[in-house]
């Protein structure tokens, strides 16, 4: 049976009222040498949200990002940024975008400040802001150093400064943590959150799923050029019937305790190992499990709960490819 994707979009995609979508992608298709890199995908990114864009290598993430930015000619579809069509009103569409590409590059013969000032002039950003951002990102001492002599991490941080200078309304970040040490990763994450709190919409593509899960309001998963899922991690987990896991450590385990748990509705699986019980159940059932153990005379020494991870969701939607 032939599926009409346009109809699916119309029924399933969240349609935001006029003026509330920061990025709107409708029926985007891009072909390279006869092969569809992106096949009729549609999604919207709400103003003020952090949207994670995930997919295995070669799934079409970068093609989508490049299409959004007007860097490549699309075969068909419509892309709007802040209501402006990227093809028809390119300048207006790009006025308030900050972009960090996957492969960050600068002019090696120019210093960090000279590089930033070049972009700053096009974005109408002051020299003071450039200097302040260089300080904030720990590059204050390298202001007058040629970028050609920078380490990968320093180039990445400079790339982040270029993306966020002028406090853009929309930030498009392709692998922002690439090449950074843990401190740098934390700094970038905090900065993304801060910018988002101040009203910026963030569209982020990353391989580090834990990072995405920590900061994103919604995610979109693309696989082989097709957008296979888009929603909150929680909703996607529910759709996939992924359930939380409880690891309960007791001073001793009796038959009475295990029976009291197994009688509860909404439990998927119970595993007993020495003094530990692993329970996979619905979110709403977690409290009932603890109550049942207490009623059966169990003494809980330790309790851990693992919510379904984005990694599990991702694996299920992409067939395990990363």
């Amino acid at each position, binding site marked *: 049976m032939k599926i009409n994707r346009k109809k699916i979009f119309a029924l399933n995609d969240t349609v935001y009222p006029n003026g509330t979508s920061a990025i709107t992608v409708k029926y985007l298709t891009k072909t390279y040498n006869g092969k569809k890199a992106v096949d009729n995908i549609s999604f919207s990114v709400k103003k003020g949200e952090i949207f994670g864009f995930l997919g295995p290598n070669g799934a079409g993430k970068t093609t989508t990002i*490049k299409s959004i*930015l*007007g*860097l*490549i*000619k699309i075969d068909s579809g419509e892309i709007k940024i802040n209501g402006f069509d990227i093809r028809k009103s*390119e*300048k*207006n569409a*790009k*006025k308030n*975008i900050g*972009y960090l*590409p996957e*492969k*960050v*590059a*600068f*002019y090696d*013969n*120019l210093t960090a400040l*000279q590089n930033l000032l*070049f*972009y700053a*002039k*096009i*974005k109408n950003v002051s020299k003071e802001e450039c200097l302040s951002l260089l300080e904030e990102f720990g590059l204050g001492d390298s202001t007058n150093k*040629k970028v050609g002599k920078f380490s990968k991490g320093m180039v990445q941080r400079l*790339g982040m400064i*270029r993306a966020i200078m002028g406090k853009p309304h929309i930030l*498009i970040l392709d692998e922002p943590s690439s090449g950074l040490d843990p401190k740098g990763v934390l700094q970038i994450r905090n900065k993304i959150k801060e910018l988002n709190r101040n009203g910026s919409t963030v569209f982020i593509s990353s391989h580090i799923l834990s990072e995405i899960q920590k900061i994103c309001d919604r995610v979109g998963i693309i696989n082989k050029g097709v957008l296979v899922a888009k929603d909150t991690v929680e909703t996607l987990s529910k759709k996939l019937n992924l359930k939380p896991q409880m690891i309960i450590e007791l001073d001793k385990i009796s038959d009475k305790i295990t029976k009291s748990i197994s009688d509860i509705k909404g439990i998927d699986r119970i595993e007993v190992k020495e003094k530990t019980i692993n329970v996979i159940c619905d979110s709403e059932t977690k409290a009932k499990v603890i109550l049942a153990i207490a009623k059966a005379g169990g003494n809980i020494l330790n309790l851990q709960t693992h919510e379904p991870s984005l990694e599990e969701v991702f694996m299920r939607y992409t067939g395990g490819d990363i």
Partner: protein
Amino acid sequence: MLDIIINIAKKEFMDNIRNKWIIIITILFASLTLLASYAGSIYSEGWQDLGVTMSIMSGLVNFLITIIALILGYSAIIGEIEKGSMNSLLSLPAKRLEIVLGKFFGLGMVLTSTILIGFGIAGIIIGFNVPDVKYDEYLIFIGATILVGLVFLSIGIFLSCLFRKRSTAMGGAIFVFFLFTIIWQFIVFALLIITSSFNIENAALPDWYFALNFFNPLGAYGSLLSLNIPSIAAQQTELIAVEYPSFFNTTNMLITLILWLFIPLILAYWRFKNKDI
């Protein structure tokens, strides 16, 4: 629009100052001109006047300016695409036309300033050592050299937009260099021989021979010099008495060079506009 073009041009200029390109080429131009003036003549020793220097230099310039302008131009666009910096530039409110023009003006400034400074310094030094210097002819020589340099820069930028890889664009630039500096001469001579058009007895050349200059910027450049600088014309007429057809004049040569400058630049923009980054 103008702000962005100037900003990109300034960046290109600054980038080339930083990587010592400008300094190296300027020194090369100045020293070659001085060398041509001091040791270029086999007829007499010591400093030669600017006329002799220009006639020696015009041959060298054919090779030097062509290769330098093509080197500056061929990686201007594709180099940035391959490196990744074009992504960021195009994510800003900068149009592709502004980028092409900014690159052309910036690199054009590099080329112009090296020619002006290099030939200028050499001209002043020669002027101190030689009496009766014709600076007006020297200025025509410098002006025509700048123009032909910009033509090859424009061709270089077109190649940079035409090809998908920097290495292929470099191959294209090498081909263009050999085509216009060496292969062209062979083609012209081959045509003369095949058509038996050259009459050695009265040294008459067919009109189409002169018209071929419109199809090679170096031909138009050489013609422009020989039409306006007597010492260069004298060097040619020493070998053969030439009678020029009516269309072979300064205006047409200037128009030819200007067309050679604009057409590749327009094609470069058209190609870049439709290019996936």
